[in-house]
């Protein structure tokens, strides 16, 4: 039996001014699946996941998450939907006026409405332990290295136990070893938290480690879709060039 479709994108079109970024892409993501979206810069990868998260509104096409049309939702329904989504930003987007503990407690207090300090503390420690950062609990984001910031961003995303995690270039700006560590961590966390993941990247080793299925975006369109091995050995020279 085919797994439930958690994200359904049909003919998505999005323009900024006169520039068309997405020219009608369509794809589905099934529960428990890791989908990697590859593509050159400016092909609309980040725009796609921002549309999925409801941060951008598409011009045409339909976009359903958990069967609900994201653009049709009112403010409260969108908020409820976002509680089931996690988003790891390219820059990790840590709140730099707050400590690591406060960063983690922020969604717990506001999204899950947890008031009990002991529970907040134990959940913060648990998630920090799972990303290997338990010693950084009292540090400020400015005191963390690039890799630690990504781990911390991942911890803040995971703390609310989202069903879908959207990763916007999780390994950008990191050295090769740290990139591999983060990619393995993404996979580990996906297994541990049983989440569905959509990963935007142009880091091929990251795609190889994390992908169940790979999609290639080019000029706002999805030009290829398949497993990593299928696309790596594609007959199409242009598609193979992504994997060299």
């Amino acid at each position, binding site marked *: 039996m085919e797994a439930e479709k958690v994200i359904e994108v049909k003919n998505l079109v999005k323009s900024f001014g006169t520039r068309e970024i997405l020219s009608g892409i369509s794809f589905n993501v099934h529960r428990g699946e890791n989908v990697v979206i590859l593509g050159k810069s400016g092909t609309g990868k980040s725009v796609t996941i921002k549309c999925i998260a409801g941060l951008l509104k598409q011009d045409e096409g339909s976009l359903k998450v958990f069967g609900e049309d994201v653009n049709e939702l009112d403010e409260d329904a969108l908020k409820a939907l976002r509680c089931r989504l996690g988003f790891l930003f390219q820059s990790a987007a840590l*709140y730099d006026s707050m400590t690591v503990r406060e960063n983690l407690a922020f969604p717990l207090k506001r*999204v899950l409405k947890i008031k009990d300090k002991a529970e907040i503390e134990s959940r913060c420690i648990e998630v920090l332990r799972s990303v290997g950062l338990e010693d950084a609990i009292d540090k400020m984001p400015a005191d963390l290295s690039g890799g630690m910031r990504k781990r911390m961003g991942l911890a803040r995303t995971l703390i609310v136990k989202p069903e879908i995690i959207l990763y916007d270039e999780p390994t950008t700006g990191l050295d090769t070893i740290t990139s591999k560590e983060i990619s393995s961590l993404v996979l580990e966390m996906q297994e541990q938290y049983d989440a569905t993941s959509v990963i935007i990247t142009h880091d091929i080793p990251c795609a190889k480690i994390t992908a169940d299925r790979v999609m290639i975006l080019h000029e706002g369109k999805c030009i290829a879709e398949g497993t990593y091995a299928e696309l790596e050995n594609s007959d199409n020279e242009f598609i193979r060039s992504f994997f060299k």
Partner: protein
Amino acid sequence: MPNQIFTAGLHNMADQVYFFKSFFRNIFKKGFEWEELFRQTYLIGYKSIGIITLTGFILGIVLTLQSQPTMKEFGAESYIPRMVSVSVIREIGPVIIALICAGKVASGIGAELSSMNVTEQIEAMEVSGANPVQFLVVTRILACIVMIPLLTIFADAMALVGGFTATVLSGDITAKLYFTNALTILDYSDLLPALFKTILFGFAIGFVGCFKGFTSNNGTASVGLAANSAVVTASVWIIIIDAIVVQVTNSILYS
């Protein structure tokens, strides 16, 4: 070209109206951020005390020293405390303190929110299901509305102390006589319009700072632009609000 400027102006105005609506709606929404409001009142109020004390004190000294020769010429030296208190409390205190706070607070808020925008922190709040307007905007604007009047009252008091210091240095007067002279001249028609004005100044400083920061474009250059634009716009608003409030209160109180 003039058409484009006109359209851009209309767009900006519409954005401000929408931002105000969003601010107002979120004041009454569930989950008010009291902790953040107290943190902001501390940052905006307590952290501005130093510059406000100095400005108020020097303002009192300068006003006294500047007016002394003229008042002496007319044999009206005993009116100096009254002149200082009325001019500081009704006009100079609120406007000068608001302009200083526009420089310190509005630019700070503009730069902070703009840099949060650039580093995707505001989007991160939004996508996590939290309410960034309630957390960032409502708390900052309300903190300004509360703290700017309090800072102005404090600065007015410092100006009277400064005026007293200048008078003591150049003549013989007791503190009791000085402050009795300075305060008995004041009535509600001096205090209430000034207080009302400072509340509006507080709103203008908070609102402009938040609007410029929240709606800034991406890119690091926008952080500086947001801070700069927040100071300039808030200062212009302060002058305009001052002119309107003086007109309105004069027509109510003295017609």
